[in-house]
C-alpha cells in the first residue's frame, strides 16, 4: 500500500526509518569526531510525525535563535537535511576549529559561519552517504547554506516545501553528545512522501 500521508506509516515502516536514521547519525558522529578531534557519541534517533506548530515546539521555542545548516536532497530521495545548533554546540565547534568563544549569536562572524557550514556539510554528507550505500540509491546534495535566525523561521523552509502535500512534518531526529556533555544539536532528515515509498520499496519492506 502506497503511503499518501506521513501518518499512514505503520510501525514497521517507522522502524525502518528509525534504523536509517541510526545508521546515518552513527556515521555522522564518526565524521564529527574526526573534525573535532574528540569523542562524539549519539543518541538513538527519534522519528516523529507532527503538525507544523507541534514540530517547532518539539525542537524549541519558535522565537529562539539557532544556527542552521540546510542541504537540499534530490535524486532517489528528495527533501531536506537540516542541522540545527544551539549555543553550547556552536561553541564546542568554534573552540576547536577557529579558537573562538561567543556568548551571543550576533558574534557569529564570517569565519565562524563557514566553520559551522563546513562542519554541517561533513556531518550531512556522511549521514547521506551511509544511507545511499545501505539502500543502494543515489542522492544528490546541494551546496550547504547557513542561517542564524529564529527557529520557527528556519523550519518554515521545510514546512513550505512539503506544504502542498502534507499538514505534517516527518522528522528523523538525531542528537550528538560530545565527551560527557550532551550538547544541543539536532540533525533532521526530512524526506518527502514520494521518497518514503521509494525507499521502503527499495529496502523490500513496502508491503508489510
Amino acid at each position: 500500500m502506497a503511503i499518501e500521508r506521513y501518518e499512514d506509516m505503520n510501525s514497521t515502516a517507522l522502524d525502518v526509518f528509525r534504523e536509517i536514521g541510526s545508521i546515518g547519525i552513527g556515521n555522522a558522529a564518526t565524521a564529527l569526531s574526526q573534525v573535532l578531534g574528540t569523542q562524539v557519541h549519539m543518541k538513538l534517533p527519534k522519528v516523529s510525525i507532527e503538525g507544523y506548530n507541534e514540530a517547532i515546539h518539539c525542537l524549541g521555542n519558535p522565537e529562539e535563535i539557532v544556527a542552521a545548516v540546510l542541504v537540499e536532497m534530490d535524486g532517489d530521495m528528495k527533501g531536506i537535511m537540516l542541522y540545527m545548533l544551539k549555543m553550547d554546540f556552536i561553541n564546542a565547534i568554534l573552540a576547536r576549529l577557529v579558537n573562538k568563544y561567543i556568548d551571543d549569536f550576533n558574534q557569529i562572524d564570517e569565519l565562524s559561519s563557514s566553520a559551522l557550514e563546513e562542519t554541517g556539510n561533513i556531518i550531512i554528507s556522511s549521514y547521506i552517504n551511509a544511507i545511499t550505500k545501505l539502500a543502494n540509491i543515489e542522492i544528490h546534495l546541494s551546496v550547504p547554506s547557513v542561517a542564524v535566525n529564529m527557529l520557527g523561521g528556519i523550519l518554515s523552509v521545510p514546512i513550505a516545501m512539503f506544504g502542498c502535500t502534507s499538514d505534517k512534518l516527518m522528522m528523523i531526529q538525531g542528537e550528538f553528545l560530545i565527551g560527557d556533555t550532551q550538547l544541543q544539536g539536532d540533525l533532521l532528515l526530512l524526506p518527502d512522501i514520494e521518497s518514503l515509498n521509494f525507499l521502503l520499496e527499495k529496502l523490500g519492506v513496502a508491503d508489510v
Partner: protein
Amino acid sequence: MGKQLVVGIGDMKLGRQEGTIITYALGSCIGIALYDPMIKLGALVHIMLPEKVNSDSNIFKYADTGIKETLRKLYAYGADKRRLTAKIAGGAKMFEMKGGGSMGNIGERNAQTVKRVLSQEGIRIVREDTGANYARTMSIDLQTGMVLIKTFGRPELRL
C-alpha cells in the same frame, strides 16, 4: 496589555476592541493584519503558500483562500471594505541557496500573491515589511491597529 491570541502556521484569529493578536517567527510565510479602525475589528492570518492547488481542507495555509476567508469573516462581523486596511510582513528567504535549488524563492512568491489577492479584493496595503533573509514576529494591537514587528538583532519596527 489585555488578552493575547496566538496564531499558528496556516491559521487565523480575529478580535475586537482590546488585546493583541500575535504570530511568531514568520519566515517565508506571510502575516496579513487586517483592521477596521471604526469598529476596532482586526484579524491576523498566517499563510505559508501562494495558492491552493488541491482539495486541502486547511484554507488558511494559502494566500488566496486564506485572505478571502478572513475577509468573509470580517465582513460578517461588520467590517466595511472601504475602511479595512492591510499590513503585511514576512516573505523572507531564510537560506541563500547557491546554484538555485528547486525551492526557489517561496517567500517572494507568497508576497506577490498576497498583494495580488488583496488588490483584487479591493483592500489597501498601508504598510509592509517583507523580503530580506530574517524571520519576523508580528502582532497587532486591536485597540489601535498598530502592528509591531520583532526580529533578531534589529530594532523593533512599528507599522
